[in-house]
């Protein structure tokens, strides 16, 4: 989207008071939230602070809630209230650092009725100093470095800029460079081929403010070219908007370097749900457009490159099919008053069905890339006619949300920290609805360790972990969450995984196949496994989970 120059000129002259600050930070918070999945994806596997983007976003959201009804025009007071909200709502490591940055900033500007350029610089300097004071051994190449460079950049530019907009531009430029430089400072980032997630989050927060000044959209995630193999076009179906009836996918080779900014701007005029992927010089563009525009993107792309393949699909017809398949309801177990109810988090309909058949009372949809909130989990059992509840999160990233649900409810809740679906199923086998909650949870906890979990999926970036080298797009195998093998085919990945799991000494293997696979395909893989391991009993179940070709339970 183009910059609205008239708007920028108007805003340049405006003094920045408390209300203006409020609009700026609202834009920053919104923009970070829009891009939080991008920040989450930067987390270096495996790190202690799980979802940096989500944590930062929730922290800033809490800060925003503190000021959203405030009518004060005093800049310093507004900044102080914002900082207080961030402190109260700080979540995770990145959230605590963010709250310290805001606390420093607010201290630097506390006596300002409106923001001057000097106060802006002073605020950023205080933000930097306060952030560094919070840790004994600061690690460079993190969000700390980014706030430092941002403050230094603003200070250096102070002499040559005329207004706050320009100063913000310079500060953001420094932040951007600092973020890009983080892999040079922190080897683990370089090894994983990513920039620091917290630093990137801070960048988005600042960039949102500038986008607000420019009059740019805050709702569409930043343009991003992803690896072709990582494009999840199936997922895009879920956000079909009214009037965007056709899905167009075009593969093309651009004439020369593709001007991404211009390309995106053009596409945004045509439709929604834009995704662009790249691989070895070839690009894939995905967009949803109204019926009358269905040939426009193709014509446009023919003008800037050579089109190699076009796919057009009628989304409305697809939606009807999806509605139909969704209508086959799952029958959950009924909860007798006073008995224990089990709530599970499940990544796919097939898996939900299996849980339901084992007597689960409710399912919360969620998994690897879509973690349900504490509220989602809470509302799944709040209205049940019992106060004894056991939660199985079935994913390591959801254990915390489950524990929070336990903390806020008045019901007697136990979380059995299952990290995978097979662990959840194993735990469910020793569930006894009539028992004591703590004792039953204890038994389920014991039962879950009887099973090993294997996962087969596709790598979304090149990385080396635990001595296994993975190329982007390769099939990878994980055993109990640890990367054990990479290969070029699902079959080889499956065999490597089973070998690592010591399959020749086990008895039963269950294959839960993902949403992109048919039962027949899964059966072929199962036959191959049976052929190799005559000792194994191999079962095939529909899992319906996204991203993972197979989840394996090895008993």
């Amino acid at each position, binding site marked *: 989207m183009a910059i609205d120059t008239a708007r920028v000129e108007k805003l340049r002259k405006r003094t920045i008071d408390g209300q203006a600050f409020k609009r700026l930070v609202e834009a920053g918070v919104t923009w970070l939230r829009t891009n939080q999945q991008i920040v989450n994806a930067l987390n270096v596997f495996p790190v202690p602070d799980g979802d940096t983007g989500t944590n930062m976003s929730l922290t800033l959201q809490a800060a925003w809630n503190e000021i959203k009804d405030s009518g004060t025009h005093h800049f310093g007071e507004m900044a102080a209230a914002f900082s207080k909200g961030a402190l109260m709502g700080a979540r995770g*490591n990145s959230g*605590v650092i963010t*709250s310290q940055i805001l*606390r420093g900033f607010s201290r630097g500007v506390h006596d300002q009725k409106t923001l001057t350029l000097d106060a802006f610089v002073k605020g950023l300097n205080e933000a930097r100093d306060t952030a560094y*004071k919070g840790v*004994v*051994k600061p690690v460079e190449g993190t969000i700390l470095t980014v706030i430092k460079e941002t403050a230094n950049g603003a200070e250096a530019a102070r002499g040559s800029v005329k207004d706050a907009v320009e100063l913000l531009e310079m500060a953001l430029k420094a932040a951007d460079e600092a973020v890009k430089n983080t892999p040079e400072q922190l080897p683990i980032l370089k090894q994983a081929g990513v920039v620091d997630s917290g630093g990137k989050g801070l960048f988005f927060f600042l960039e949102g403010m500038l986008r607000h000044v420019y009059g740019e959209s805050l709702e569409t995630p930043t343009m991003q070219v992803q690896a072709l193999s990582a494009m999840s076009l199936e997922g895009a179906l879920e956000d079909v908007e009214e009037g965007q009836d056709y899905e167009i996918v075009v593969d093309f080779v651009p004439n020369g370097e593709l001007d991404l900014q211009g390309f995106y701007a053009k596409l945004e005029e045509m439709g929604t749900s834009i995704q662009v992927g790249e691989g070895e010089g070839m690009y894939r563009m995905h967009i949803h457009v109204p019926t009358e525009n269905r040939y426009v993107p193709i014509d446009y792309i023919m003008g800037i490159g050579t089109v190699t393949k076009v796919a057009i699909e009628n989304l409305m017809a697809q939606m009807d099919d999806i509605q139909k398949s969704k209508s086959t309801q799952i029958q959950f177990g009924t909860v007798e008053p006073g008995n224990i109810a089990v709530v599970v988090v499940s990544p796919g309909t097939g898996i939900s069905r299996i849980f339901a058949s084992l007597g689960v009372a409710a399912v919360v949809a969620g998994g690897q890339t879509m973690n349900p909130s504490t509220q989602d989990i809470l509302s799944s059992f709040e209205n049940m006619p019992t106060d004894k509840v056991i939660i199985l999160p079935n994913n390591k990233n959801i254990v915390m949300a489950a524990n929070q649900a336990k903390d806020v409810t008045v019901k007697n809740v136990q979380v059995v920290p299952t990290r995978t679906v097979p662990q959840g199923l194993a735990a469910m086998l020793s569930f006894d609805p009539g028992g004591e909650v703590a004792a039953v949870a204890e038994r389920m906890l014991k039962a879950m360790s009887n099973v090993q979990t294997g996962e087969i999926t596709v790598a979304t970036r090149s990385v080396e972990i635990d001595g296994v080298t993975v190329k982007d797009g390769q099939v990878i195998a994980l055993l109990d969450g640890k990367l054990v093998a990479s290969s070029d085919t699902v079959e080889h990945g499956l065999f490597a995984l089973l070998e690592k799991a010591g399959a020749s000494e086990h008895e039963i293997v269950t294959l839960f196949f993902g949403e992109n696979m048919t039962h027949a395909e899964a059966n072929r893989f199962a036959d191959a496994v049976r052929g190799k391991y005559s000792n194994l009993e191999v079962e095939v179940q529909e899992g319906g989970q996204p991203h993972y070709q197979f989840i394996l339970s090895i008993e």
Partner: protein
Amino acid sequence: MGEETTSLGGIHVSPNAVATIAYHATLQSYGVVGLAPKNLADGIVSTITREPSRGISVQYKEDEIHIDIHVIVEYGTRINSVAESVANTVRFHVEKALGLKVNTVNVHVAGLRISNTD
């Protein structure tokens, strides 16, 4: 715990070694500005120590590893979040280095350091 048996013999990791890993992990956690000597933790803490074994105690009980950490936290941070991230970071680093499961990490906030008042 802290022991592993291989075909060539046993490996024993002393609690002190674990404490050193925990110490470095703790000091890298955001919001922690020091460790407090554990014997003074109940009283008024006046010294901030930088020696690994002070402020951290590691205990092996049969097959379990328990770690207690006494920290000084920067005033003005959300103590709950800081403590939680200390526990996560310590557990992560110790488990990664040892390949053994840590059963509990207790974080005791022994005091706050005030470097700025708002």
